[in-house]
């Protein structure tokens, strides 16, 4: 299955936006994790932004960045949102409240707890009425999202926006799921065309014989291993450096995605 990549969004400590991230990943500057970004997600109407969770702002920020690059109308583009645990911060607040005798939870908190919250807010902000799938595959949520997204583009022959995100998990929930820092990435995928930043051939390998691609930079490699959405880093590095590259992304224990990246334009 061959698709074009028409837009990229990125947000993580030290990788605030694709322009910055591309330079770091291409080796034109060292990786300085530094401060946690606080995304503006300017597309959200002010009253929706007030009600929104961190997950929503991170997801909308990268989605917006990728969509602008693609030049496509977001109202015409279906979406896939991939996240291992979704709204872990909201779930922490919710479970704390449910452990009190009164159990009085706010309607807003409850509606923020569903896995498709960022998808819903993206739809409200863009008035997009296309299909939107929110999914999870634990540590391989990015790989599962990419497989769903590429399959959709290949089968339906139309563009699609993929957003993968997981945020830092608050205590005490981090004892069960330790994720120290947030990571969000977005890709606009489309049928192959001349206006693409790159093309990507995806093949599902029904073994896990080859080791998953990793990063030489140890600090970046730690980021990759720490956050399910950051399993996208080898793909992003290939897109940043240009040329042709083969990237392996693990999918469950018995499969892997083989990505042949080509014709990167800088």
């Amino acid at each position: 299955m061959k698709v074009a990549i028409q837009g990229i969004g990125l947000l993580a400590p030290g990788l605030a936006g694709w322009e910055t991230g591309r330079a770091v990943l291409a080796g034109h500057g060292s990786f300085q994790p530094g401060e946690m970004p606080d995304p503006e997600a300017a597309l959200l109407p002010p009253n929706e932004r007030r009600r929104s969770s961190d997950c929503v702002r991170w997801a909308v920020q990268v989605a917006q960045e990728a969509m602008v690059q693609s030049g496509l109308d977001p109202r015409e583009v279906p979406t896939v949102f991939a996240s291992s645990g979704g709204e872990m911060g909201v779930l922490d607040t919710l479970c704390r409240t449910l452990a009190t005798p009164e159990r009085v939870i706010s309607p807003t908190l409850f509606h923020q707890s569903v896995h498709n919250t960022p998808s819903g807010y993206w739809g409200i902000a863009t008035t997009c009425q296309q299909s939107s799938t929110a999914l999870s595959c634990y540590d391989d949520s990015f790989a599962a999202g990419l497989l769903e997204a590429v399959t959709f583009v290949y089968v339906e022959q139309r563009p699609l926006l993929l957003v993968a995100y997981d945020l830092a998990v608050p205590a005490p929930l981090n004892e069960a799921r330790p994720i120290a820092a947030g990571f969000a990435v977005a890709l606009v995928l489309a049928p192959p065309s001349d206006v693409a930043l790159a093309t990507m051939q995806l093949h599902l390998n029904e073994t896990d014989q080859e080791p998953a691609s990793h990063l030489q930079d140890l600090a970046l490699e730690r980021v990759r291993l720490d956050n399910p959405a950051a399993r996208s880093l080898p793909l992003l590095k290939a897109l940043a450096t240009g040329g042709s590259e083969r990237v392996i992304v693990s999918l469950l224990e018995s499969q892997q995605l083989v990505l042949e990246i080509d014709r990167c334009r800088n």
Partner: protein
Amino acid sequence: MSANVQPITPLTLTAYTLVTANGRGVGPVLQALRGRRSGLKPCDFEDVTLKTYIGRVEGLEDFSLGNELERFDCRNNRLAWLGLQQDGFMVAVAEAKQRYGAHRVAVVMGTSTSGILETEHAYQARNQAGSLPDWYTSRYRYTHNMFSLGHFVQVCLGLRGPAVVVSTACSSSAKVFATADRLLRAGLCDAAIVGGVDSLCLTTLYGFSALQLLSAAPCRPCDEDRDGLSLGEAAGFALLESSERVGRRGAVALLGYGESTDGYHMSHPHPEGAGAIRAIRDALARAGRRPEDIEYVNLHGTATRANDSVEDKAVYSIFGARPACSSTKGWTGHTLGAAGITEAVISALCLTEGLIPGTLNCARVDPSLKSRILRENQIGSLSCVASNIFGFGGNNCSLILGKL
């Protein structure tokens, strides 16, 4: 609207099964439909004191998964396990595995809350330092995480193909049919297990209560005095294979599906049902059917005032008052992430049995609804039905099922 949508090859439901408050397997579901017996009872879930009715599956509290599956043990996976044991489903999957190989069978599950009940219990059991108990932290991956259900089903069935959990609130286990179709069409698998499991938990009971959407009585879909929904729990599964490959004349098949979003509000549907209309139209286009081919519409019909009214607008604008319409939530309650598979299996039973269930608990149809809402059961052969699932976050899915 449907310009991008092309007809698909039907997918045969080679096997299917369902566990709800009405009982284990499709037999009790059918008996309850025929006998018009509701599975809803006054809420007796754990220490919940809400005045509401629930569709609780009996016996989940009293067994645990065997040693090898112990790490997955939680209410949601117990319910999943119970579902897998019914109606010869495991045998049908084993045969498919033999035909195609474990790597060529995908698992696509839907759930909205997965095993969050474990986390709720763990938060109640925090120690003085605020730490969570060990029995919980070592098993988060296998219980609460969204993918736990997909992982569990894959392990139970010994499958090694693509696996994923879709979590789009109520539409979750309807959208799994769409994902499975794409995986099959792209040649990434030869068969797919689709389904969904959602179990009762404090989050949804107190959450829907906070939204003032729970009825104090058994839910009354489409009734003029309807005042909210009843929550239920369910596990349902179907084995999908390309009908071109397996044929099976007379078998129930997925003919089409449509997915959309409202782009309107997180917890209120679009006032004109714009997303719902788009989902139904796309489903018809993929099925290659016209509105007049649909004989029965299985409504989402949650029994909240707004949802039933908006769904009625959408359904009437496409189908007019011709097809029979009903909601089966009075039997099962709203099973949230399992609603899609619950209604799909019920629709399959309607097709095979020639039964249209009249809306249970609807004493008088709201006169402002224009669709032909059925109150009493009807008997008569059916060949093509539509099932609607419209969810939180304005996420919609419509399925068209029919006999090959």
